[in-house]
């Protein structure tokens, strides 16, 4: 990779340890993606905010780097482990966790980020103009940006996005160029798919696809389904982009996603037929989804605890528009700054299993939170688990 004199000087450590670390990461990721140079980016979205995922070493790293690191471009951040406004209601979370999570939050704020604590930055901000180069680490957000937002980003890692935020640069990898080779088309063979089916399609596509995939046989899914697909795809693979195609005649290799393929994904992630708790939101719910939910819950109430995750910005908008009223009347707990994935709010001493419509959530509930997972589309959750 060719570096400018200034970039080379920073890599050599002439501009301090922090920039040297940032450039070391950019060079390694540039080599990994065959980039010939670094280019400017205008928005970074960072992952690595939840103490549960990054642990003590991550907390220490951020505390140290935030002593002198400042973000150079607009920078948003992923969810934390919990919602500080509601932490007193969750007695099982120990003080050490709360203290370390506060330290991580403060380190990011010290570096100058916009404290969004959301995995859905595309639901909070208007997206910049077409083909703008950004650096999104959160996998569902990177896939959304490339596939539905007309932006360009690598499927960045937590560190490569942080390096981009600090330097304002990212490797000029294939995904940032105009033509991305997309040799594989996935033919959706399921009729009338719901958001759970789209999540499973995404999970499947992430496994079989490389950098980018075509998807045929799908007509204009709603935003909930699109987000579910981005979440599923980001969890299972390296694939960073999809595009819907009308016809698969001219494309190369084809793979079907039918009953058999869907059952295989379902059986991998669904481990029980009943959940002790319901979680909605991974990715966090947007305003439209909260509006839908409030209509679906009108006059009903949950038979069991239900946690509903959305960003703080979306929650505030929903309160202003009074979408939260029906949801809370039905017993739904609206939580912000956190998400189903790896939240310690799910107390494994109290519950053994979780019902969710999120494929991404299911993967981490099963493998990291280590609880049983019961997968159901939202319509079925409302039908079975409310009265």
């Amino acid at each position, binding site marked *: 990779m060719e570096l400018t004199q200034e970039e080379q000087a920073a890599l050599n450590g002439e501009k301090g340890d922090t920039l040297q*670390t940032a450039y*070391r*990461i950019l*060079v*390694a*990721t540039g*080599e*990994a*993606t065959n980039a010939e140079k670094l280019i400017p980016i205008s928005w970074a979205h960072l*992952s*690595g905010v*939840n103490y549960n*995922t*990054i*642990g*003590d*070493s*991550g907390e*220490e*790293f951020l505390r140290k780097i935030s002593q002198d690191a400042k973000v150079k471009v607009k920078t948003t951040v992923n969810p934390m482990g919990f919602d500080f406004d509601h932490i007193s209601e969750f007695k099982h979370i120990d003080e050490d966790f709360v203290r370390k999570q506060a330290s991580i939050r403060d380190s990011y704020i010290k570096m100058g980020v916009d404290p969004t604590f959301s995995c859905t930055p595309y639901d909070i901000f208007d997206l910049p103009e077409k083909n703008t180069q950004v650096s999104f*680490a*959160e*996998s569902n957000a*990177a896939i959304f940006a490339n596939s539905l937002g007309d932006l360009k980003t*690598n*499927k*960045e*890692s*937590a*560190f*490569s*996005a942080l*390096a981009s935020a600090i330097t304002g640069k990212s490797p000029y990898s294939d995904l940032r160029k105009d033509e991305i080779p997309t040799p594989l088309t996935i033919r959706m063979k399921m009729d009338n798919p719901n958001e759970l089916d789209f999540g499973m399609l995404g999970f499947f596509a*992430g496994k079989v696809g490389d950098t980018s995939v075509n998807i045929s046989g799908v007509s204009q899914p709603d935003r909930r389904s699109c987000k579910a697909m981005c979440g599923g795809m*980001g*969890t*299972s*693979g*390296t694939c960073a982009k999809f595009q819907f195609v009308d016809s698969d005649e001219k494309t190369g290799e084809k793979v079907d996603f039918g009953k058999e393929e869907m059952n295989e994904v379902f059986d*991998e992630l669904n481990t029980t037929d009943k959940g002790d708790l319901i979680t909605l939101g991974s990715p966090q719910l947007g305003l439209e989804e909260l509006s839908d939910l409030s209509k679906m819950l009108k006059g009903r109430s949950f038979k069991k605890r239900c946690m509903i995750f959305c960003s703080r910005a979306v929650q505030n908008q929903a309160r202003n528009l009074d979408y939260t009223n029906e949801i809370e009347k039905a017993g739904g707990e609206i939580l912000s700054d956190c998400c189903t994935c*790896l939240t310690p709010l799910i107390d494994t001493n109290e519950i053994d299993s979780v019902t969710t419509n999120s494929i991404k959530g299911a*993967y*981490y509930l099963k*493998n*990291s939170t280590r609880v049983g997972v019961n997968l159901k589309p939202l319509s079925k959750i409302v039908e079975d688990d409310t009265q």
Partner: protein
Amino acid sequence: MTKVIVQGKVKGIVLKTTNPINFLGAVDKKTGIIQDQKYDIFEKSIKNSILVFPHGIGSSVGAYTIYSLKSYESAPLAMICKKADLTVASGCALANIPMIVVSNEQFESIENGKEIEINTESTTILN
């Protein structure tokens, strides 16, 4: 074709898997033990191994897992992949774990359980 992503020189025993690895969901960040039963190296530890796997997948936070493994002295000595991805590359860069990308043929020829030496200065893998 061998491509160096992070430099270094180490000798160790190969732990090879055919499964792409999601470091966040599948690896315990303190012990290095594989905790997802879908993997063919389920319940094995990647600590102090030369970890040979196709590529990283999934969460971008996996880079922190790699950094955490290094802090707990549970990291692999080196990583060899068929395809480089940003999560593994950046995690290894920050944790200073040598990492190389090899061709399909080279990948196939590396045997599980064998002692090998990697030297990125001369880009060699010695059996």
